[in-house]
């Protein structure tokens, strides 16, 4: 599967993020370099505090890195960050929808903010609402929606402008199994549309099932990066979870 992806969408070069406090410095990311390929689902795995959310926030341009660069279309994204933002959709871990607006109004606002022409916006909203089965909630405020539906609205909102890259930060955390499975289908569909997905998760089954490549982060550094199949075969394990456990055990030794 991996060999099919030949075009690099973004290059992450020696990315570092340090948090400076009075008495200590936390190295949340400590020299990450990865190429993310166009159209792949790239799983970011790691224990709590490994740097997954920090990395996805930097890629979403929410926070600046302390050092390093991200290259998109042969240029640093920081040369014209607003242009890069137009190509990215970001679903944070915590739903941050505007609760005073209805689902439809949230989607319309996102569309307008990302420059979707007014003539296309209504159709685009209809299309995405139907795709994520949100019809019955279109006039509801996000506050009344269940966790699963809030996540769907978040994904829908981040896709309204047809981004090339979508960053999903723990999209299924705390959701019931059947809702998780339904969201997995939605994530697989993104791949079919050639949208590159960066999927941050600490559910190993989810990462194994969905990802074309997996990157295991540990204390802000890349521990391993490969396809799930290659990871399992090189560790002679049948499940990714066992690979992960072995890695963590090696770490504690």
């Amino acid at each position, binding site marked *: 599967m991996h060999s099919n992806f030949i075009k690099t969408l973004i290059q992450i070069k020696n990315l570092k993020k340090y948090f400076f406090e009075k008495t200590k410095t936390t190295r949340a990311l400590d020299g990450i370099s990865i190429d993310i390929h166009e159209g792949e689902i790239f799983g970011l795995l790691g224990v709590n505090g490994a740097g997954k959310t920090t990395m996805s926030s930097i890629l*979403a*341009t*929410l*926070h*600046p890195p302390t050092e390093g660069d991200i290259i998109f279309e042969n240029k640093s994204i*920081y040369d014209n*960050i*607003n*242009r890069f*933002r*137009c190509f*990215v959709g*970001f679903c*944070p871990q*915590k*739903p*941050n*929808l*505007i*609760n*005073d*607006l209805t689902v439809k109004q949230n989607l319309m*606002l996102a569309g*307008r*903010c*990302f*420059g979707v022409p007014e003539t296309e916006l209504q159709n685009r909203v209809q299309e995405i609402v139907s795709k994520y089965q949100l019809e019955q909630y279109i006039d509801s405020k996000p506050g009344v929606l269940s966790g699963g539906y809030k996540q769907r609205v978040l994904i829908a909102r981040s896709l309204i402008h047809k981004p090339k890259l979508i960053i999903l930060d723990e999209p299924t955390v705390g959701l019931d199994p059947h809702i998780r499975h339904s969201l997995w289908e939605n994530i697989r569909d993104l791949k079919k549309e050639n949208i590159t997905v960066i999927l941050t998760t600490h559910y190993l089954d989810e990462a194994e099932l969905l990802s074309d490549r997996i990157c295991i982060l540990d204390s802000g550094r890349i521990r391993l990066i490969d396809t799930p199949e290659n990871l399992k075969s090189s560790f002679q394990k049948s499940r990714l979870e066992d690979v992960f456990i072995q890695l963590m055990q090696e770490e504690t030794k």
Partner: protein
Amino acid sequence: MSKIKLFLELLKTDLFIYKKIIFDSLINAAIWLVSTVIIFAYIFPHIGMPKAFGTFIAVGCIANSIFWDVWTTSTSFIADIEGEKKINYFLTLPIPNTLIFVKQIISYAIKAGIPALFLLPLMKLLLWNRMSLANFSLTKFSIIFVLISIFVGAFSLFITSLIKSIDHVGNIANRFLFPLWLFSGTNYPWKLLYSISPILAYLTFLNPLLYAMEGSRAAILGQDGYLPFWACAIMLVIFTFLFGWLGIRKLKKRLDFV
């Protein structure tokens, strides 16, 4: 979408949301004014206070009403930073992040200003013959009204940047906002303070709310007895830039945005 269009779209959304609570804001402002008028214009004269004192205090309600919006907006912003983090969504939109905060300032200014706009006609109705508008200048009033509102928008951002967490909101109010308010001349003209303690009077030049109070009274009641109107206007502009810049700088550090 151009940056200006996006800026206006976000501002429009803020005002659309505000529209739903505008009636509540009007009632809140009116309750403050009506209570103030009853106490200072109709009860205080019976304990020997001059009748003009009621008008003097009532006119201050306009600046007060705008100023105390700082409390509401800062609390709601801090609650968002600690809770849902809607601000993070706006900080990933294709617009320079500084403009998001400039939008906040303008949005706060409009939300604080709208209810106060209705206070002057209501005040005239309540005070009627006790309030003379012979020296009222519409131009000056419009200028000072806009300047106070924008200053309060910028000041709200600065105050938000000072609040460590939602639990500390009370500290900021008690240690910062109340002293500023009490020493702003809300209950006395600056010239009276100067006649009692020139040092204290000069110290209050550091209080931006002083210029809001004195400027609005000069515009409504006439220049006589108050600090020069244009000096107040200029000082408000200076304080707006200062607090706006400080607020954005401190929030940039706190929210760690690009």
